[in-house]
């Protein structure tokens, strides 16, 4: 497979939209469904919105949240309580208005006909889940069966099994404690799947140790690997250069922004030992 150019295409705007619902998924995770404002460009899987926690004077930075799903009237996000900002978001209720900029960033390449193995953990589920609902529901999209979604968590509790339309025939689960699906981590499950059924390309999104393990696996198997990164951001527009990561560019190393050059990168380009841990 030739390397795909990762570009962002949608023109972002700043919007205020009402919360449709805020649903607890587990002890730490919740699902935010927002009205999709008219004028909000069609997002691609991997893109994010930059959302301001609704507590003026308490938080200065917006929070980048990857889009889990989007239709004509709504847009959903999966959020994990990590600090005071996401705690504040957990308390929003239907009807509350939220301020965000988006859609931002680039996206996972659309690869019809390729056998894609998508490896996710935590909120890294969002772009991988969205990729599947977007591209396998469209003519010419990646047909069901060619896109396999592998999702890992500590326990069954963080898998949200009855919350989403998982289409179990092409979704596989891993739990550290073996309470559901494969007992072990999701990258070990990916290795088993590659042995069992093969794969042409790997996508990954999740905690950094998982991404690193996925990168090792893809290198060992000689499979192209696209990875979506997280980072603290200032502008989200590629201007302030706060969210940079070190990337190989031919013989040299340069800084690229996660917000605008990413969040999706070719794993071979990343300087893995210099990535932010999180």
């Amino acid at each position, binding site marked *: 497979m030739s390397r795909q150019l990762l570009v962002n295409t949608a023109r972002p705007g700043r919007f205020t939209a009402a919360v449709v619902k805020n649903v607890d998924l587990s002890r730490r995770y919740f699902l935010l469904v927002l009205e999709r404002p008219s004028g909000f460009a069609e997002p691609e899987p991997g893109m994010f919105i930059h959302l301001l926690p609704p507590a003026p*004077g308490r938080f200065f*930075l917006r929070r980048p949240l990857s889009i889990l799903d989007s239709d004509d009237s709504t847009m959903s996000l999966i959020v994990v309580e990590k600090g005071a900002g996401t705690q504040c978001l957990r308390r929003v209720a239907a009807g509350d208005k939220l301020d965000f900029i988006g859609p931002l960033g680039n996206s996972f390449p659309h690869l019809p006909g390729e056998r894609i193995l998508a490896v996710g953990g935590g909120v890294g589920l969002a772009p991988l889940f969205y990729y599947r609902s977007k591209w396998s529901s469209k003519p010419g999209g990646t047909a069901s069966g060619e896109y396999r979604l592998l999702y890992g968590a500590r326990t069954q509790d963080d898998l949200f099994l009855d919350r989403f339309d998982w289409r179990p025939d092409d979704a596989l689960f891993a739990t550290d404690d073996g309470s559901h699906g494969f007992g072990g981590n999701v990258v070990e499950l990916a290795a088993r799947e590659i042995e069992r059924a093969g794969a042409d390309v790997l996508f990954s999104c999740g905690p950094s140790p998982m991404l690193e393990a996925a990168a090792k696996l893809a290198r060992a198997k000689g499979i192209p690997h696209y990875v979506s990164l997280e980072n603290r951001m200032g*502008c989200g527009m590629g201007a302030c250069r706060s969210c940079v990561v070190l990337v190989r560019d031919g013989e040299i190393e340069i800084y690229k922004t996660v917000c605008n050059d990413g969040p999706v990168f070719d794993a071979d380009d990343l300087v893995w030992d210099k990535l*932010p841990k999180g």
Partner: protein
Amino acid sequence: MRMAKSDISIRIGPVVFQTPVFLASGICGYGEEYSPLIDAGKLGGIVTKTITLRPRMGNPPPRIRELPTGALNSIGLENVGLDVYLEDKLPRLAKRNVDVIVSIAAERAAEFDEIARALAGAGGFKGVELNLSCPNIDEEALDHGRDPAFVEKITRIVKDRLPDRAVLVKITPNVTDIGEVAKAAEAGGADGISAINTVVGIDFDLDTGKPFFYKGSGGYSGPGVLPIALQKVWEVAKAVSISVVGIGGISSVDDARKFFIAGASAVQVGTSLWQNPELPGEIVSAFTEHPEWMKKGPY
């Protein structure tokens, strides 16, 4: 009956700008990045990200630390360098009809001269802002920005090369007497003083006991620095008779008004763009309705 639109243009040295509201250097990149959200053609202009003679990679991440009242940053003057800026970045802004003030930095007088000479041969900008005050580079370079003799010398070198452009000198708040540095820039022929740059600050990681940033200190900006910036602009405006451009912590129209009361004749909006990219346009609209707000206080 609708009133005729009032004229809120300002003059800085030899140059007229259509409004007194600018985007501050660093926050808006090279001007293109924010174009989906900000129509900079309606503003006084953009002060582009500081460029140096050669490209700079900037500081290793992390580069940003959130505070309730703004952020600490440690970008370290990452930039594409003068050549790429002139060939690629500046022409794009000219096509967009955006007025540009080019922010430049260097460590030695000869480098300032080389940059100014190259700029003199290029078109597409109305002014330059000498960044003599970024806290995120070497301590030695920042010390230069605190030295009145160096400030005067550099200002004169650049102004001599660019007599028909507005030459602003951006000075640091991290000095005992900001008025002395401002006077030195005025003596060197500056058309205006931009104040302030970020306030030096530091944060520590509680797990490691080390500074949060690789370089240790960073630059503090955002709403929290507003009273410091107003104080410094007030001091500068008393010390010099050239234009003063107020920068620091503007997050509302009222904040902008206070800089004019303190003696500024223009303002730049920076870090608050992250929250409200529409703010510069809102300030322009408000001042167009109320041109009397451009007067110095007390009223």
